[in-house]
């Protein structure tokens, strides 16, 4: 039996369709006005899975994640087909985390029970805001009351639930965010993802921003909101374990931990990315065609939708481990970094970061960002990665 590599092994399944495109979102999502053939997509996803199973056979699957797009537009049967295929190809045990992203509309909530029967045991609900006016600006299809109802149903249906919020929105005040945050925690999920709004290229918000019609929050206020979020969530039992993710003890998202611990993951579906350690130790970065129908055609004609499978060099692996690993409160294993990257941190840069209170040693071998270091993490990582 093949041992799982450091960091675990997960499967990511991308469902690329949405009812509408949200103006802030740069994910690979597409709106289709004709129904798509879920059977064909399920079959194509299974085809891709089988191909990856040949590259990394015999693994134990720690997690399966249905992301999107809007995976809660999938029929429960589609989800079931894919999970059965994963179980057939690798070892999938009852302890594996099976997550799915869902939008909290009343229509989608009716499918929750079906997903649970198919094997999903963790639901991540895209609430985004607890204010109807703000939800409109964010282009969401649901209201606050719909969202609260959906969370109620989810809590009764799934052992674990999480939800997402977007903050540091235009014109948001510190006080308003504090109230919204507390209300969100009242909804009693065991996991919260809270992202500061950023302008991503190719989005409607970017066009508005470029045209001067969207004003971003003052960066100092955004920094205050970040600090406040850390304090409030810690005080209420949901401390952050990653830059934007907060969880009760033992409720951390196993799937995302695989990314951040720089483990292995298979990515199937349009525009999905993977990282695979092959038998000979080679680390492969994979990605697939983004456009759904093109991807479908590729899989059906040639057996996969891959557009790149690149071998990552030592430096690249080291950089990725830093980029992902330093986001975690547990930090990174420095000997593993040195082995992967083939380099050591520049001692002067490391010393400066320590003296500025940006990073600290947790043990002889683990280095992590401090509370002060997290809001500046991109700059911290650039320092660590520089010669």
């Amino acid at each position, binding site marked *: 039996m093949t041992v799982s590599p450091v960091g675990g092994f997960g499967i*990511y399944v991308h469902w690329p369709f949405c009812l509408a495109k949200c103006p802030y979102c740069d994910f690979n999502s597409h709106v289709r006005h004709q129904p798509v053939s879920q059977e064909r997509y399920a079959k194509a996803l299974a085809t891709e899975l089988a191909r990856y199973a040949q590259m990394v056979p015999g693994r134990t699957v720690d997690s399966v994640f249905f992301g999107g797009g809007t995976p809660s537009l999938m029929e429960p049967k589609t989800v079931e087909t894919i999970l059965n295929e994963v179980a057939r190809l690798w070892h999938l045990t009852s302890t594996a985390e099976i997550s799915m992203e869902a939008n909290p509309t009343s229509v989608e909530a009716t499918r929750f029970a079906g997903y649970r029967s198919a094997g999903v045991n963790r639901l991540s609900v895209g609430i985004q805001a607890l204010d109807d006016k703000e939800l409109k600006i964010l282009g969401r299809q649901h209201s606050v009351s719909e969202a609260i109802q959906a969370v109620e149903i989810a809590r009764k249906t799934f052992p674990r639930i999480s939800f997402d919020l977007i903050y540091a929105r235009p014109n948001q005040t510190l006080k308003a965010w504090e109230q919204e945050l507390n209300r969100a925690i009242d909804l009693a999920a065991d996991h919260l993802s809270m992202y500061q709004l950023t302008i991503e290229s190719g989005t409607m918000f970017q066009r508005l921003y470029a045209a001067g019609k969207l004003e971003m929050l003052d*960066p100092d206020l955004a920094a205050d909101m*970040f600090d406040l979020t850390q304090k409030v969530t810690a005080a209420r039992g949901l401390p952050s374990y990653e830059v934007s993710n907060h969880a009760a003890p033992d409720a951390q998202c196993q799937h995302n931990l695989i990314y951040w611990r720089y483990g292995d993951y298979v990515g199937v579906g349009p525009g999905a990315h993977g990282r695979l350690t092959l038998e000979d130790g080679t680390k492969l970065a994979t990605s697939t065609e983004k456009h759904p129908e093109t991807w479908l055609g590729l899989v059906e004609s040639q057996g996969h939708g891959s557009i790149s499978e690149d071998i990552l060099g030592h430096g690249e692996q080291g950089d*990725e481990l830093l*980029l992902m690993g330093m986001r975690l409160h547990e930090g990174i294993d420095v000997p593993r970094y040195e082995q992967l990257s083939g380099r050591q941190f520049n001692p002067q840069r490391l010393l400066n970061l320590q003296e*500025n209170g940006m990073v600290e040693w947790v043990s002889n071998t683990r280095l992590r960002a401090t509370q002060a270091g*997290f*809001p*500046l993490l991109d700059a911290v990582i650039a320092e660590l990665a*520089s010669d």
Partner: protein
Amino acid sequence: MTTKTLSNIRNFSIVAHIDHGKSTLADRLIQSTGTLTDREMTEQVLDSMDIEKERGITIKAQTVRLIYKADNGEEYTLNLIDTPGHVDFAYEVSRSLAAVEGSLLVVDASQGVEAQTLANVYQAIDNDHDIVTVLNKVDLPAAEPDRIKEQIEDVIGLDTSDSVMISAKTGLGIPDVLEAIVKQLPAPKGNPDGPLKAMLVDSWYDTYLGVMVLVRIIDGELKKGDSIKMMGTGAVYPVDRVGVMTPAFVATDRLGPGEIGVLTASIKEVADTRVGDTITTDKKGCTEALPGFKPAQPVVFCGLFPVDANDFEDLRSAMGKLRLNDASFSYEMETSAALGFGFRCGFLGLLHLEIIQERLSREFNLDLIATAPSVVYEMEMTDGSQFEMHNPADMPDVVKIKEIREPWIRANIMTPDEYLGAILKLCQDRRGVQVDLSYVGSRAMVTYDLPLNEVVFDFYDRLKSISKGYASFDYTISEYRAGDLAKMSILVNDEPVDALSVLVHRSQADKRGRAMCEVLKELIPRHMFKIPIQAALGGRVIARETLSALRKDVTAKCYGGDASRKRKLLDKQKAGKKKMRQFGKVEIPQEAFIQALKMDD
């Protein structure tokens, strides 16, 4: 080929302000005398460097021999020396002008006389030139030839009754120019039987022929095989070739008095030839050298450092190659605590500095950091010793200094009078002393004495900006004067940054210190901690800014699909950091070293 009859030779140069059409006129003269066929013509034939063509300036003197059959039926040899127009090359210009008997003064018929025109035409007059005035661009709607003629008479005092009206662009009036050269300019004089006496006008390096020396024969004859002596350096060389430029080199048997031509003589580098030197024969040569010879004297210095320390050897070799062709540029190794190994380089002026920097990056593909330009200070010490200081980092202990002297210039500025007030203020702010102010119509001409160190940073940029580009400026180095100067250090995060220290006049120190701190605050990116930026004079802080700490720089979302994209961003960040220089804990971007000295008065 026999030596030309003196009476059928005309030697001339063209004097003009930049953009008034000097190079275009030269092109037309070459074309209409059939020296080059239309197929061989490229724009600005005589400006051979790309930088010259792009900027419309002439850096090296060039020469061309034109054969012209005049209306009187006789054939004339016209030798044109195209001179650099810029003040940085004033000495080269003066030697070129001394090698010819006349000048064409080219003035744009709508813009009129500019400061640079004046400086150059006065030099021509000082060299006893006869001058043909040429009004160019007379075909343009804005042309006012009569008004400009009057201006030339008023300002320069030249008779314009024989002026030639042309459009160099369309070719209008070009035959009249050729006729005027023959009729209005004098033939050279010289003694064909005397010992060889020739002026070294310029020299350059040719990949195939080696060092080529442009000469004007005053007396005697120069032949292949002659053994010649440079009177300034005493060096003796056998002449390999003599010839003329057409503008390509064409070998001839000999050059006689009044002629302008080229020799090669196994000279190893351009630095072995001194512009203005007198060339004679090794044996039975002339005894008296030509007057006016001066060795090249750099007036502005700056440090050039490779961005990537590994490029140091490449930089050294590039400097060596440039120097082969430009003896007026000097360099010596320098080490800076901040910038590592590099070179302290001397230039004839700011344009020269810019050109060399640009050629290093363009022709040798080198990424460079240039430190603030500095002038040469004369230091007189209490023990009576003296030295020239090229670098503020070499500033000795203040108590040992008796006196510091700095170079001053005399500047001529011409401007439409609506900008005069702002220009006078600029000159006053830069410690200028007004010498003269006069008007020609609505144009003011002002003469100021200014310390060069107030001019080297950004005076010209400021002048252009406050006059919306209308003012023109020209200067000559005049003298060294004692000044109340002190070294100002810049401290970033409490550490002195040697490459940013400058010598300032005490009266300017507060203002300059404040301005530098403000600019640095804008240029240095925010760090993870707050950074004090201070200017200090002696041990005393005279200006201070604080760059506040960075508060937030973190990607909100980063999952499995983001790793590749984030890695590419990290590569860019790392590359950006390489272009910064580390001072203690602070990273300073390269452009800071030069930008910090620009002031918004």
